[in-house]
């Protein structure tokens, strides 16, 4: 299930822009249950703050 909440920049407190999803395969045991069975890995979302340019990521 995709995460639809906007990420908030920890520095500027503004909504970040979701600009990329990437599949990450090298999961450890802790992440094993989060693997998307149809893709074979975890989808990581990448977000950037439009004000300061800082980046952040989270599991989708």
């Amino acid at each position, binding site marked *: 299930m995709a995460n639809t909440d906007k990420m908030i920049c920890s520095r500027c407190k503004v909504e970040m*822009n*979701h*600009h*990329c*999803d*990437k599949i*990450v395969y*090298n999961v450890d045991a802790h992440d094993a249950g989060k693997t998307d069975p149809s893709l074979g890995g975890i989808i*990581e979302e*990448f977000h*950037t*703050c*439009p*004000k300061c*340019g*800082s*980046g*952040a*990521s989270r599991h989708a």
Partner: protein
Amino acid sequence: MEGSRSLFLPVILGTTRQGRMSLHVSHLLTQEVAKQNGVETELIDIAAVSLPTGDAGEAIKEAGFSGKMNRADGLVIVAPEYNHGYSGLLKHVLDSCLKEYIHKAVGIVGVSAGPFGGTRVIQNLLPVMREIGLVTIFWDVNFSSVQKVFAEDGKLLDESYIRRIDKFLKELIWMAKTLRQGREQISLD
């Protein structure tokens, strides 16, 4: 406001070998990046990035390097060619980050003592760049027979490199600006 922020384009020196000629190349690149309008830079020597070798990947992320990669809009990687490949420690350092690189520009400078100017190390680095989310430009700079390009004190002996570096940096800056706009303003959703 956002549009007035300088670009940050650090130069990564991708070897820890003693007597490395790539140090001269890195100083030259850093100096030329610093001349560009609206661009800040600094030299990041991977010998100064303190990472353990008993583990690898993001588990050993170093705060200083990670912070600089997060701030960066693009990278210049100076990569000497060793046995047709890149330095293992360069890969070790690059692998310690991921989210910090996504949708950022990268230009690669190949260095070799032989005649091919690091073309093979550049080719070997391209799939690595792609997988960690960096966007490569199609200009490279190739330092062939690097021991003849610099004097012992690091003085550049062949001024033709300045023009090549300038063309390389113009493309890198264009790509870095474009990708910054994309990261900050263009949504995937």
